[in-house]
């Protein structure tokens, strides 16, 4: 759609002004290639998106071609947490714990509308987006997203992984929640992210 190619579709070029050197670049390429093509998913499947995730892993859409057929239900051995489904507040400490138990390097895919923003569940029980609990790399919209949609999200994550650089130490920073409140982003930000979208509040948010 549109004539401008998406940024991630451009070949990642070597920047001659960087001080990296030839060996580091090749090593980066090798490491990122290895990581991107063998992302072991941790399927944190709760609801309907989990069924579509299972369908994506089954024979018609097949995640094995991405190297992701080995579902790791133990967070210790997983690379990417795929949160498939709605997360109520009762489940929030569980997903926080699972994320903290995963070893670096790790990424998170928020699959579906409910994991990304609370979805159609704008009520007392549902977390309005798991990015209020854990850092998310890729959001896959849909309710549930089609398997092709999830695969596109996985491919976006692969391209994100391939753009990583070893000398960027901040990439592997562990999320540090505030010890008193356990929140990792400030409370007013959480309130603002969770507000109902649309006519009810902030009529001018989209600028229209």
């Amino acid at each position, binding site marked *: 759609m549109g004539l401008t190619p998406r940024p991630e579709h451009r070949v990642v070029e070597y920047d001659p002004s960087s001080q990296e050197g030839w060996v580091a670049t090749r090593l980066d390429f090798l490491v990122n290639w290895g990581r991107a093509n063998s992302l072991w998913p941790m399927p944190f499947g709760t609801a309907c998106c989990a069924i579509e995730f299972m369908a994506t892993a089954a024979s018609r859409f097949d995640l094995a071609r991405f190297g992701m057929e080995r579902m790791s239900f133990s967070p210790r051995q997983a690379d990417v947490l795929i949160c498939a489904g709605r997360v109520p*507040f*009762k489940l*929030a*400490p569980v997903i*926080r*714990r699972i994320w903290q138990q995963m070893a670096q390097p790790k990424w998170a895919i928020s699959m579906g509308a409910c994991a990304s923003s609370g979805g159609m569940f*704008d*009520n*007392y*029980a549902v*977390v*309005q987006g798991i990015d*209020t*609990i854990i850092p998310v790399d890729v959001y896959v919209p849909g309710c549930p997203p089609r398997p092709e949609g999830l695969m596109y999200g996985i491919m976006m994550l692969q391209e994100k992984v391939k753009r990583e650089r070893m000398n960027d130490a901040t990439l592997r920073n562990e999320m540090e*929640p505030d010890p008193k*409140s*356990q*929140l990792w982003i400030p*409370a*007013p930000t*959480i*309130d603002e992210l*969770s507000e*109902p979208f649309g006519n009810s509040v902030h009529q001018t948010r989209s600028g229209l």
Partner: protein
Amino acid sequence: MTGPFPIEYAGSASKDAPAPATPRNVPNRGGAVNPSAADLRTRFGASIRRVDVVWGETNVYVAPEAVLDIIRWLHDDPSQRYDYLSDVTAVEYRDLEQPIEVVWHLRSLPYRRFLRVKAQLTKNRPLEIPSVWSIYKSADWLERECFDMFGIMFVGHPDLRRILMWEQYREGFPLRKDFPLRGRFSRAEQLRQALAANPEARYSMEELSIADAFEDLPTEMRQRLRSGERTGE
């Protein structure tokens, strides 16, 4: 108890009744009354406050004090045999003056009958109603959920605690009409309370007593648990 068990057929006590058929042209009010309503009136008299037939279903309004006797009679009496408790739930109306109704959906499999029993609880008193757990084991979780969502105490239930929300949930009873859709606290506060669940204290004292695991916990954890702190799941 092991099988093989003899097969029991629904409708076994009403062999000469007409075969069940899809209801059509069901009137709003009126229509065929469930015979159990008349039997209840005969047996319990004034405890049966009202009988309505709405959309083909018989609703029996009973006094809250008589609920346990009535339901026990419906279960035990050979002419009623309501052996299946489909549901226990409650209804609060938008008109806040109206009482909360506790609703039991009973089925008689041998007679192929469906009956709705209702008891009205006025809101100016504590919301208490006898539990039917002693009659139907299916009431176990159904009544716990009703308590969780409405705050109705089921007297006689062996283990009445929250089931869908966590035990220390402080916002209230979600399905009450004075409980706002998005909860009483701000989103950040709700998240803060949810994440405050202490992962090590995730077990109840009863569960910890199983493995004598209580002794293995660190001292300050033991002190906190003894003082009553829970995640309450």
